[in-house]
Each structure stands twice: as structure tokens, then as C-alpha cells.
């Protein structure tokens, strides 16, 4: 077994097999994994918001779907991973509170998931699996060795996508 690399909220990192990468307690945020099955290098970004252009306060690129994925691609490129060989998986984007409101801030989970799909499509990266939505938190672990994404939630069985 390798080490477990931790990614915090609005944070990103990369790792190579046999190491694995994790982010804990995803709520409305999304954990996006980009991986190359051949070199077994992968990266993860924990995005909080869909769009950096809609927000003035955007010094941290990892906070947003658009700039987060862009910078993660750059990090992977530095390791010699070409964009064309990357596939993606993602999880998160829950609505943690059953708020009956038109406050779009509270539906941000859904908007985050849509934004990630759109950004990935714009780079031509295939999203092979996802586990998004619903109303519960998720801890995710990605193993580049097997390209499996483990999803753990409270009171639910382990899910592997």
C-alpha cells in the first residue's frame, strides 16, 4: 500500500500509484479526479463554486470548477501527462439541507456538477463515472493503480465507481 494524499476544501494535488488520493466530507462541493490509466498518475481538485468569472473574490483557483480543472491539468502536464490521455470521475454536489428556497446559493451542489461536466467537455475529457446529488456527505478515495473511486457515506455501503 502506498500513502494517502489528502486534498482539503478548495485545494488540489496529484499522486502516482501505489499512492492514493482522498478528500474528506464532500458536501455541496465536488471532488473531481483526472487520471491517466497508463502512467497511473492522477490529480484531484475539491471545487466549491461553479464559475470564477461570476465571483470577484477569486485568488484561489482551486475554489472553482473552471480554474480548478485548468490548473489541475497544468499540474498534470508538468508530470508529463497529456490531456488526451486523461479520463475523469467525480462525486459530491449534494444538497445538504432540504431548503425550499429560490436562494441559488443553496442549490450550488447541482450547479457545481453541471459546471464540472461542462468544463470537462470543453477540454474533451471523458467523464467515465460520477456519483453526484442527493442529500448526504461523501468521503472519496481514488486509487490510480485500479482507477477506482471509493465513495464512503454515513450509514451507507461503500460505493465503488
Amino acid at each position, binding site marked *: 500500500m502506498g500513502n494517502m494524499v489528502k486534498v*482539503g*476544501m*478548495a*485545494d488540489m494535488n496529484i499522486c502516482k500509484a501505489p499512492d492514493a488520493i482522498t478528500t*474528506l*466530507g*464532500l*458536501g*455541496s*462541493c465536488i471532488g473531481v479526479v483526472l487520471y491517466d490509466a497508463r502512467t497511473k498518475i492522477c490529480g484531484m481538485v475539491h471545487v*466549491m*463554486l461553479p464559475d470564477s468569472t461570476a*465571483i*470577484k*473574490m477569486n*485568488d*484561489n483557483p482551486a*475554489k472553482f470548477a473552471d480554474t480548478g480543472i485548468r490548473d489541475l491539468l497544468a499540474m498534470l502536464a508538468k508530470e508529463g501527462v497529456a490531456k488526451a490521455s486523461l479520463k475523469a470521475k467525480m462525486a459530491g454536489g*449534494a444538497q*445538504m*439541507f*432540504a*431548503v425550499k*428556497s429560490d*436562494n441559488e*446559493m*443553496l442549490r*450550488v451542489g447541482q450547479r457545481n456538477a453541471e459546471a464540472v461536466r461542462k468544463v470537462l467537455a470543453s477540454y474533451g475529457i471523458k467523464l467515465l463515472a460520477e456519483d453526484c446529488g442527493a*442529500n*448526504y*456527505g*461523501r*468521503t472519496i478515495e481514488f486509487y490510480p493503480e485500479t482507477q477506482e473511486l471509493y465513495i464512503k457515506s*454515513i*450509514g451507507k455501503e461503500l460505493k465503488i465507481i
Partner: protein
Amino acid sequence: MSARLEEFSDMEFDVLKEISNIGAGNATTAISTMLGIKVDMKVPVIKFLEFKELAESIGGAENIVTGILFGLEMDIDGMMMFVMDCRSAQKMVASILHTEEAEGAEFSEMGVSVLQELGNIIAGSYLSAISSLTHLSIAPTVPYLSVDMAGAILSVPAIQFGTVSDRALLIRSEFGEEGTNVDGYFILVPTLEAFEKIFTSLGLSN
């Protein structure tokens, strides 16, 4: 007042601390009266935390907690959250319903109602204290309850902060009772405009 949370002055911090002290003090008295026990409150701690430190500060991202969320309306926009660890929440439910204390993260339908009502009382007393201090009208929405990992629960106020800052302002007022050890946190998340209104109403505007 600055356009960024990061640039708040010491004076502005002190004001926020005092406001949360008064709010939490009022709420603690309400809890104390309701439970018929003596509940103590610690001096509130105000911290600017990077998002990745937020969940760690209340016991780790995977720590299971009970979160009660309110939207704030009228003069102040934003949200307020009251977070308790599950054991404390079970303790409070049991002491109000006079039932055996349940284990884990499962709450009965009655337990959920109790927690929401508890949240109502806490939010109401917290906000009315701030309201009378600032002469601003602040009303909470109905309470929403979620029991899940701290990271997931806190992502909701964190995202709200994320729109105006790269860090979250955690106003943590811990309360507890010796012996029963009920621990909880209040997290107040006004919008930037709301901060401005609070400071202006207290004569701090420049």
C-alpha cells in the same frame, strides 16, 4: 470598511466578537432555561480559517455532527448555523423528551422536531440580542436539519463565504455543561453587505 473580509481591522474584529458573545450568551440562557440545567459558555473565538482548515477546527471533516441551518432575512442577509456533535444532540433530545439517550447519528421523528425547535429558540435568542444591539431587523427562516460529516455540513456556510473570500470567518461560541458535556458551536455567516450594515449601525463606518 474594507471590501474584503481579510482586511477587517482589530476594532471590527472586537465588535464581531462582542456581538457573538452577546448573541451566544442570550442563546445559552435560553438553552439553560429549557433544559433546567446550568449551561456555561466559553468566550467566543473568532478565526479566519482557510477552507481546508475549517472542518479540522471542529473535530475533523469526517466527525459526525448535527447541523441546524437558518437563512437570515430582512436587514441582514446571510446564514446562521448551529453545530453540535451527535452525542450532545442526543443528550439534549433525551433530556427534553425525558427518554433514554439514543446512540449514534439516528434521530427519531420526534427527536428531529425537538432539535429544530431547539434551533428556533437558539437562533431567535441569538439574533434578537444582535438585533437590539444594532437596531437592525433580523429574522431567521425556518430551521433545516442535517446530520452528516462535519466537512459536508460546513461546506454550506463555506461556499457562502467562498463567494466573497478565500477564507471563512468562524465565530465559534462553545457552550457546555460540566457533567453532561453538551458542546455546540454557533457559526454566523453574514454577507459582506451585512457586515457593513452591522458596522455602520454601531457607528464604525468610515
